[in-house]
């Protein structure tokens, strides 16, 4: 990458760079993308300085390109993440994360009396977007829980 500035996390030749991840959610993003068992070369940066997030995390995955449906899984933990597709050290495409209208089988319901916490049921939430937060409305117990960012 033609730049005079030194990169904190070294560049990759081909692959995907996930930037602007909240520093505290880097591990969650790794898990949601199934990277904990991947064999690709992965470099991770924690607590890097960021203008918008304060401290951010960055994940660079060499030799791996994600489908949009995979990327959107991280919408709840890193809604402001940017995704750069790298080919031969150049950014060839930039993507942003799209919050889906509902998520199935990913989050646990926060209500201890919800039937999904007692029976083998895939959770299902409608996502309600608001300015600085996202709310999850459980399809089963109808409870709404709030996830606050930043």
């Amino acid at each position: 990458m033609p730049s005079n500035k030194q990169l904190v996390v070294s560049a990759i030749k081909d692959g995907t760079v996930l930037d602007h991840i909240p520093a505290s959610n880097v591990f969650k993003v790794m898990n949601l993308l199934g990277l904990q068992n991947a064999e690709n070369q992965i470099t991770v940066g924690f607590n890097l300085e960021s203008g918008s997030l304060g401290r951010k995390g960055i994940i660079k995955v060499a030799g791996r390109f994600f489908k949009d449906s995979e990327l959107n899984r991280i919408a709840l933990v890193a809604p402001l993440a940017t995704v750069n597709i790298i080919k031969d050290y150049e950014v060839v495409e930039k993507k942003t994360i799209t919050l889906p209208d509902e998520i199935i089988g990913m989050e646990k319901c926060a209500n201890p009396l919800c039937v999904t916490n007692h029976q083998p049921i895939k959770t299902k939430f409608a996502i309600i977007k608001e300015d600085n937060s996202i709310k999850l409305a459980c399809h089963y117990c109808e409870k709404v829980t709030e996830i606050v960012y930043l």
Partner: protein
Amino acid sequence: MPKSLISIHDFSKDEILHILDIAKFMEKNRCQKILDGKVVACLFFEPSTRTRLSFETAANRLGARVIGFSDTANTSISKGETLKDTIKMVSNYVDMIIMRHPLEGAARYASEVCDLPVVNAGDGANQHPSQTLLDLYTILQTQGRLDNIRINMVGDLKYGRTVHSLLQALCHFNPEFIFTAPDELKMPQEYKTLLDSKGFPYEETSSLTEHLNDCDILYMTRVQGERFSDPMEYEKVKNVYHLKADMLGGVRDNMKILHPLPRVGEIAEDVDNTPYAYYFKQAENGMYVRMAIISYLLGYNN
């Protein structure tokens, strides 16, 4: 998938009014053998008297037969059978499932694992839509209208599912609310936000007498010990309101007192003999409304 009644949100305003219409017909014609040959399952995974008996009576009055259980001790559930298996098994035998379950969302889940109409007769602290419909029926019966009702909700407004569902259903009808509750049991913010967003007025008080004289409906509720995790909290608030006949001197002529029952100490027995007491008639109405729900979901619309 056939139409089920899981949450009051499942019915539009028109459907609600249609159910109330059918209920009115049922009240005039208490025996309708339109469901002759049908079998209805009443699955009560949690104890209940009024709701179970009125659903069973409603099914019987329509000519249907009823099977089921009223507690889980003598069933395969005590052997660890999953809810899905119980529902799937029963759904092979019957034409409709009416169920109460202590876990929230259980009825919604049941409606997804079988191909029958399911009626939620209470899922934990979540929904109890037949109660809401019978409350609406009773308000309509006593006031001659549902629009522009000024209703004073009293007691446990924090955990009480009946008041939450009734509040949501009344939002179809331009209501005004008074919330009478001790600080520990105040109406949760989410419902007040809902009213704010729709522009419906509400006032809050902790005094039972403050708004007795300026409401059309006094909706009393029991403080439910079983919903408290801390017994000390329950002791503090359990006897906070006690309505007596001599407090009713200045109320509106059309005012009626409703209560989902059972009552424990909220309404003194001397109130029963005043013209304002309507909770026993309200409980009776439950049967007509449940007849209406059962027949509507099984496809009998007229």
